[in-house]
């Protein structure tokens, strides 16, 4: 049977799989050291580029896996949900999010890992994140126009540039490899 096997399943089994996927995700983040705010912010001071290395190796592996499983006919990529593109909200929201991340020292996912490994600062970030979402949701009306502007749907880089999927995959791998080389040079103590 062609994958994905259980789309949009919120039955008991579907939610058990959600817990299992989350547990593996949390364990990988913890092993990488991304439950540590000091390690995470090292990225923005050029002292520890773990964030970049972990994120890009994960993206490359998942991207190559999805591409080749799609080519092999094992995975039906048309049924895998590509996050929708909303140009202005994602550019502005991204910049705001990044400034918050440098201040908090953790992102929403890693704050859960930090809190779960006993860190009070992780819990503070989680509570802040929750409050931020709650307050923004309650005061949503003035943001709605921006939030719903510049919709582009599930647009991929290959569709946007009119370049074959495989060529974009290859380009991302090349950029990641160059990036890893640069990261190792930046980190090397002078």
């Amino acid at each position, binding site marked *: 049977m062609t994958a*994905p096997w259980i*789309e949009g399943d*919120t039955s008991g089994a*579907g*939610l058990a*799989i959600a817990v299992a996927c*989350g*547990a593996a995700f*949390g*364990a990988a983040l*913890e092993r*990488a*050291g991304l439950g540590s705010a*000091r390690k995470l*912010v090292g990225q923005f*001071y050029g002292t520890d580029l773990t964030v970049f290395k*972990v994120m890009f*190796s*994960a993206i490359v*592996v998942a*991207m190559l*896996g*999805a591409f080749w499983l799609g080519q092999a006919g094992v995975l039906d990529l048309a049924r895998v949900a*590509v996050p929708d593109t909303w140009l202005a*909200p*994602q550019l*502005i*929201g*991204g*910049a705001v*999010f990044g*400034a*918050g*991340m*440098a*201040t*908090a020292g953790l*992102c*929403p*996912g890693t*704050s*859960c*890992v*930090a809190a*779960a*490994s*006993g860190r009070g600062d992780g819990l*503070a*970030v989680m509570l802040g994140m*929750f*409050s*931020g979402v709650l*307050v*923004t*949701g309650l005061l*949503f009306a003035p943001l709605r126009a921006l939030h719903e502007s510049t919709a582009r749907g*599930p*647009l991929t*880089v290959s569709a946007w540039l009119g370049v074959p999927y495989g060529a*974009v995959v290859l380009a991302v791998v090349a950029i990641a490899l160059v990036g890893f080389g640069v990261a190792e040079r930046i980190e090397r103590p002078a």
Partner: protein
Amino acid sequence: MIGRVRRPYADPYVAGACLGVVLLAAFVITGRGLGASGAFATTAAGLTHAIAPAEAEANPYFARYLGGGGPWRDWLLFEIGGVALGGALSAWAAGRLRGEVERGPRARRRSRLVLGFAGGMVMGLGAVLARGCTSGLALTGGALLSVGAWLFMLAAFAGAYLAAPVLRRVWR
């Protein structure tokens, strides 16, 4: 945990590759990726609905979390519960499970907690605007080559690098 040795963290490329395999498994099994901010959003929607049902249903942002199986049967809410579970088990197995407030060498405990909360709130605003965070948008969408995910990732790194010099005293 007293007396246990904290084992060093894993190699970032190995940990990242494992994370990539987990993300790929989520694509194959469920047809969706991983996430985090959605769990906060569905909790906010669910609590608002419990206190003021009519207001929550009339709110265009919260309303999208109130359909289907309802806000408490949300896939990402269970997934984030798993993240905490997996993070705790992994930290425990590596001797890294311990109560502390991690902060820069010159930062006070209270200022770290206040800045953590404040930074979290700012991330909340950004995640609502962008419809996702580093997990659900940057990581998941990045691997699926979503244009918005890559724009979000570039903008988030830019925002963080712009804010970092101002925060140098907090962390260095």
